[in-house]
């Protein structure tokens, strides 16, 4: 009972990392931009966050640094794909490769550094409920932020004018342009906000989730987050659920390893990646299903005529 509660808690925590990054990428994709640089953004966010906590102490600075790093890098990405019309896939890959290289290079002084362990704060009263308390209400504030972010995005996308404009830019940039909306600026804003969230997710990994800095520590989470938006057919609530599902999978894998199950650890380590493939296959099997849900102009450049 107790261990199940802890497993749920750990799964939500692991899912939070994916959820924040994937919700950020969802904002990008709703505006019609695919950012394959998520992995690089998360790595740089992780390093920036870690370095900020080493120098300034409070975790809040780490989150701020992660947001800043993600925003700055995605600004470069956005400028390239939106103003210079470079290929979105190639530019995203460049961002991933550069981010990994830069974080490995700049992170060397931090490889030995340690951070104070972050205590999870319990919600008063709710945290004391048996089973539900330890499972749900003794988490880092970021776990609740992810839920809040999901709700906020649902409200924004489907209940506000600005959200409608953002979606129209992703569905039909020509129409949005004809109506007088600054398509490129809207897209850039979406890219920067989404990128900042990826950076934040990275910072959460290096400062709270596993408080240390190791080269390549994001280990594909950025790519899994990218797969999650497809898996969720671009719906915020499903993104969050999918993230928890993957978080759960990661944790079950650790628990099995801890329990000494007689499966090679490498097989368990490859589970999240194999699961991503399986999930992609299941969801993509029906092309109509994807096509009706996908933002129509995703990945397509838009260049306003003279």
């Amino acid at each position, binding site marked *: 009972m107790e261990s199940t509660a802890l497993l749920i808690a750990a799964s939500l925590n692991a899912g939070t990392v994916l959820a924040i990054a994937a919700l950020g990428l969802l904002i990008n994709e709703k505006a019609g931009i695919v950012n*394959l640089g998520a992995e*690089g953004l998360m790595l740089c966010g992780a390093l920036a966050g870690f370095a900020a906590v080493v120098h300034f102490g409070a975790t809040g600075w780490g989150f701020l640094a992660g947001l800043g790093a993600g925003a700055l890098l995605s600004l*470069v990405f956005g400028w*390239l794909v939106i*103003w*210079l*019309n*470079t*290929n979105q*896939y*190639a*530019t995203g*890959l*460049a*961002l991933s*490769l*550069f*981010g*990994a*290289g*830069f974080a*490995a*290079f700049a992170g*060397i002084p931090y490889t030995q550094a340690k951070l104070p362990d972050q205590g999870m704060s319990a919600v008063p009263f709710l945290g004391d409920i048996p089973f539900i308390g330890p499972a749900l209400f003794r988490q880092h504030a970021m776990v609740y932020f992810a839920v809040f972010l999901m709700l906020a995005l649902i409200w924004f996308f489907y209940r506000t004018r600005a959200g409608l404009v953002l979606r129209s830019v992703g569905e039909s940039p020509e129409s949005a342009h004809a109506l007088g909306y600054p398509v490129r600026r809207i897209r850039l804003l979406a890219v920067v906000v989404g990128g900042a969230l990826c950076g934040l997710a990275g910072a959460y990994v290096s400062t709270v989730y596993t408080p240390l800095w190791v*080269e390549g520590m994001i*280990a*594909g989470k950025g*790519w*899994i987050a*990218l*797969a999650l938006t*497809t898996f969720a057919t671009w719906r915020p609530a499903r993104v969050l659920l999918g993230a928890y599902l993957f978080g759960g999978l990661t944790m079950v894998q650790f628990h099995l390893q801890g329990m000494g199950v007689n499966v*090679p650890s*490498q*097989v368990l*380590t*490859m589970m999240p*990646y*194999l699961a*991503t*493939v399986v999930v*992609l*296959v299941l969801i*993509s*099997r029906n*092309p109509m299903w*994807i096509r009706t849900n996908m933002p129509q102009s995703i990945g397509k450049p838009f*260049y306003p005529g*003279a």
Partner: protein
Amino acid sequence: MLKLEVRPQPSQAGSYASPLLALALTVVIGIGLFVVLGKDPVRGLQVFFVEPVKSWYAVGELMVKATPLLLIGLGLAVCFRSNVWNIGAEGQFVIGAVFAGGVALMADKTTGPWIVWAVLAAGVVGGMLWASVTAVLRDRFNANEILVSLMLVYVAVQILNYLVYGPWKDPMGFNFPQTQTFEKVAQVPRLFTGSRVNIGLVLALVGVAGVWLYLARTYSGFAQQVGGLAPAAARYAGFSSRRALWIALLFSGAMAGLAGALEVAGPIGQLTPHVPVGYGFAAIIVAFVGRLHPVGIVFSAILMSMFYIGGELAQSRLGLPKAITGVFQGVLLFALLACDTLIAYRLKWRKS
């Protein structure tokens, strides 16, 4: 203010100038980085661009590192020209290495020299098999090949780790996670004494000619590229997009697998967890910087090899971390993509 204006026709000169301009930009940024880090930029440039070609031995080392990049880059060029986004070449490289290693470990003192060819063929088969997983999932289930091929990189690395930490571990290896060193007869023969250059370089150069012939002189190569440039036109012409997908993935998988085989049966000589060093990812940059053209890729593979060797020298000579290579690789690709804008657009000064 400066504005972009669409050129009536893409600039031919621009497409040649862009990689050079990108390299120049990368060098400028590199000089800036050296200055910021308090290193002599002249010394830094020497380490990257002069030392790797200073002696015959150094040139040999340059070729040793350029060979896998060239092979994988050629495969990816065919892929990208067909608009198939295989970014999991690193995984195909690893599985190629595993297959090749498996065959090489079967050799003993009495095996004939034919084993080398079996080792290389196994690598090709391994790479193709691994790429065909992506192809099947894309073809049958419409799964995005970018994400699938990338996820399979992590899976491939774990398979390698499982083997070298488990069943294939050298019993006499002091518990290090590595296989036995392959028998001499199973290792790729070297071309010259006093240099580590091996027949892989010859195979890669044959590959250059082969890919050029395929793309420029065959019907199938033509169909492949039409599908990449104008999918609608290809459909109208009756070129099968499924066929294009399979050819692209199998060929790039084969090339990456061959590179993996040459690497473990060549400079490394055994399977270790350090087989994957990012050649599969660097080759993406190689392919783009080489304009997806076989001859261009020769130059870009050599350039990227200089980055690798320069990074190692920067570590020993200048006390800079080797990871600086990754920074320069990323900057180069960014710069190239930005410069490529000038192929389709021109800058126009306009009063606003």
